[in-house]
C-alpha cells in the first residue's frame, strides 16, 4: 500500500541577518505498510512522527523540502497526486483537538470531510450519522462546538472525521494520548477493525505498550531516522530486538521494571553518522563516520553498524 524509501525533510529557517539556514529534521526514513496491516510508528517526542504524516499528505509548511521516494499503491506519490487523493484515499487522524475549527459545529465539520472524500451531497447526512453511531457519539453532539467536547469525545470526533470517507490508508497521529486505558483500548480497537476491513493503518505513537496491543509491525524512529522495523511479537523478549535504541525502549517498559535508564535523544548536527550514537553504550569510531545502511534481519530490518 505504502512504501517510503530514504525520505528526508528539511526546513529553511532565516537566522540573524536574513541568512538562510537549513535544518534537517528527518533523514534516511524508511517505512512500509501493506493492506490489512497496522504498522506502529514509535519514536520519542520530536522524532518527526507528525512530520511524516503531514509529508505524506503534502501539507507541510511552505519552507519544508522533501526528498526521497514514496510509493502509494505502487505509483510514485507526487505533489499533484497528493492533492488529488488526500482526504479521498489517505486520511489523517490529527494529533490534537486544536485541529477542529473552534467556531464550527462538529456535525458541519464531519459533513464537510465526508463531502470532500467524494461522497454525494445527498448521501452525506446518512454517512455522517453512521460515522457518529460507529464512534458512539450521540446525535446532539453534531450541534456542539469543539469546546463542548470532552477529550475522549474530541478524539472520537477526529477519528469519525477521518474515517467518514473510504480512505484506504489511515494515518493515526497519537490516537490514544490523553485517554484513559479503557477508552484508549477502544480507540485502538477501532483502528484494528479498520485494518481488518482491508485498510492500511499507520499508528503513530510514543507509547509502545499501547501500540503493541494492536500492531502487526513496529517501525522505530530515532531523531527522524528509521532504526529498526520489527514484528510486534519480537517485543515479547529482548532476544529478537536488534537495535540498541529499541532495546532501551523495551527496557523502559513498566513490565520490564525499567531496567537501565535512558537519556533523551540528542539530535546530532548534520555531519552524518548514526543518529543514536550520542546515547549508545556500544558506540565506536565507525558510528560517527556514516549513517548505517538498513539491513534485513529476519522479518525485520535494522540500521546499526554493529547488528
Amino acid at each position, binding site marked *: 500500500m505504502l512504501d517510503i524509501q530514504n525520505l528526508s525533510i528539511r526546513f529553511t529557517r532565516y537566522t540573524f541577518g536574513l541568512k538562510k539556514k537549513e535544518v534537517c529534521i528527518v533523514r534516511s526514513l524508511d517505512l512500509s505498510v501493506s493492506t490489512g496491516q497496522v504498522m506502529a510508528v514509535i519514536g520519542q517526542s520530536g522524532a518527526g512522527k507528525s512530520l511524516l504524516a*503531514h509529508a505524506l*499528505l503534502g*501539507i507541510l*509548511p511552505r519552507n519544508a523540502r522533501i526528498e526521497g521516494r514514496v510509493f502509494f499503491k505502487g505509483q510514485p506519490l507526487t505533489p499533484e497526486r497528493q*492533492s488529488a*487523493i*488526500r*482526504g*479521498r484515499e489517505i*486520511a*489523517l487522524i*490529527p494529533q*490534537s483537538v*486544536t*485541529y*477542529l*475549527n*473552534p*467556531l*464550527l459545529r462538529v456535525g458541519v465539520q464531519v459533513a*464537510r*470531510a465526508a463531502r*470532500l*472524500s467524494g461522497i454525494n451531497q445527498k448521501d452525506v447526512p446518512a454517512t455522517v450519522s453512521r460515522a457518529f453511531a460507529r464512534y458512539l457519539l450521540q446525535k446532539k453532539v453534531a*450541534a*456542539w*462546538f469543539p*469546546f*463542548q467536547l470532552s477529550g475522549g469525545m474530541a478524539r472520537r470526533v477526529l477519528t469519525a*472525521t477521518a474515517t467518514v470517507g473510504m480512505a484506504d490508508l489511515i494515518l493515526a497521529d497519537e490516537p490514544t494520548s490523553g485517554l484513559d486505558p479503557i477508552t484508549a483500548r477502544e480507540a485502538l480497537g477501532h483502528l484494528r477493525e479498520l485494518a481488518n476491513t482491508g485498510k492500511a493503518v499507520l499508528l503513530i505513537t510514543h507509547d509502545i505498550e499501547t501500540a503493541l496491543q494492536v500492531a502487526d509491525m513496529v517501525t522505530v524512529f530515532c531523531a527522524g531516522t528509521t532504526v529498526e522495523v520489527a514484528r510486534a511479537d519480537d517485543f515479547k523478549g529482548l532476544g529478537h530486538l536488534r537495535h540498541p535504541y529499541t532495546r532501551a525502549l523495551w527496557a523502559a517498559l513498566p513490565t520490564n521494571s525499567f531496567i537501565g535508564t535512558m537519556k533523551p535523544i540528542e539530535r546530532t548536527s548534520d555531519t552524518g553518522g548514526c543518529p543514536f550514537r550520542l546515547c549508545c553504550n556500544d558506540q565506536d569510531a565507525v558510528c560517527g563516520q556514516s549513517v548505517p545502511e538498513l539491513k534485513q534481519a529476519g522479518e525485520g530490518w535494522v540500521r546499526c553498524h554493529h547488528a
Partner: protein
Amino acid sequence: MPLQLTKFLFAKTLRLVLLVAAVATLSFVLVSRSPIDPVDAYVGAAVMKISPEQRQMIIARWGLDRPPLERFGRWAAQLAKGDFGVSTIFNEPVTAVIAKRFVTSLWLMVLAWCFSGLLGFALGLIAGAWEESPADRLIRLYAYTMASTPTFWVGMILLMLFSVYLGWTPVCCAWPPGLSAEQATLWQRLHHLLLPAVTLSLIGIAQITLHTREKTIEAMRSDYAVFARAQGESPGGIVCRRALRNVALPAVTLQFASLGELFGGAVLAEQVFAYPGLGRTTVEAGIRGDIPLLLGIVLFSTIFVFTGNFVADLIYYLVDPRLRKTAGGFS
C-alpha cells in the same frame, strides 16, 4: 434574557455613565481654563458696542460670577435633563443642530463605513489567503500607502481630479447650492456624497485590509486549516468554508470599534469638500468659540464612539459560542 446578558448590559450602561461623567468634567475644566471669553464669543462683532455695565449684567445673568463648582453643578443638572443649551452661531438648541448635522454626516459615514468594511475585508481575505502572491503584494502596497496618507490630501487630489479637472462631481456641499436639504433629489445628494465618501473609504480600507490579512494568514496556518487541507480542501475552500467566521468576527469588531477614526476622518473630509455635516460643524464651533455646541458635540461623539465599541462587544458576545458557554444551555 439570560442572566449573563443582563449583567453584560448593566456593566456596559454603568461604564457609559461613568465615561460621560468623566468627559463632561474634563471638558468643563478645559473650557473654563480656555482663553475664550464666553461673553465676547456670545456678543461677537458687537463686542465694542456694549458697556462694562451691560457686560456685568450678562455675567450675572449667566452666573459666570459664581464659583466653578456651582457652575458645574448647574450645567450638569441641565445636561441630565437633556438641555445642552443654545448654539451661539446657529441660534438654535444644540440638540437640534447636532441632530440635523449628524443626519447629513450619517449619510457620508454609513456609506464610507459599509464600503470600506466590505471592500477592505474582501481585499484582506484575498491577500491573506494567497500570501506573497502578486495580488497580495499589490493590496499591501495600496494599504500601506493609504495608511500613511493624510485624509485631507487624498480628498484634495480627488477634488482636483474629478471635480475641477474632469468636472464629474460637484466641488462642494451636500446638495446643489440654493436648494434646501428637502428639495434635493436622492440622486443629487448621492452625487454630492460620492467624492467625500470615496475619500473616507479609501483611507478606512487600509486598516481593515491589513487587519483582515493578518487574521487570514494566522487562520491559514492554524491547525484546523492544516486539517482541512488534509481532507482535500482547496485554499479557496478553506477561506470560504472554514476560516470565514474566525476572520470575520475580529473584523466586524474592529469595524465597529473604529467609529472613532471614522468620525475623525469625517471632520477632515467634510472640511475639504465643504460638506455641512457634524464634522464641519465641529470645526466651526471650535473656531468661532461656540462653547455650548462644542461641548454638545464632544459629549455626543463620546456616546457615538462608545456605541460602536458596545456593538462590537455585543456581536462578539452573541456570535462567539465560547463566550456564551456559561450563559446557560448549549445552543
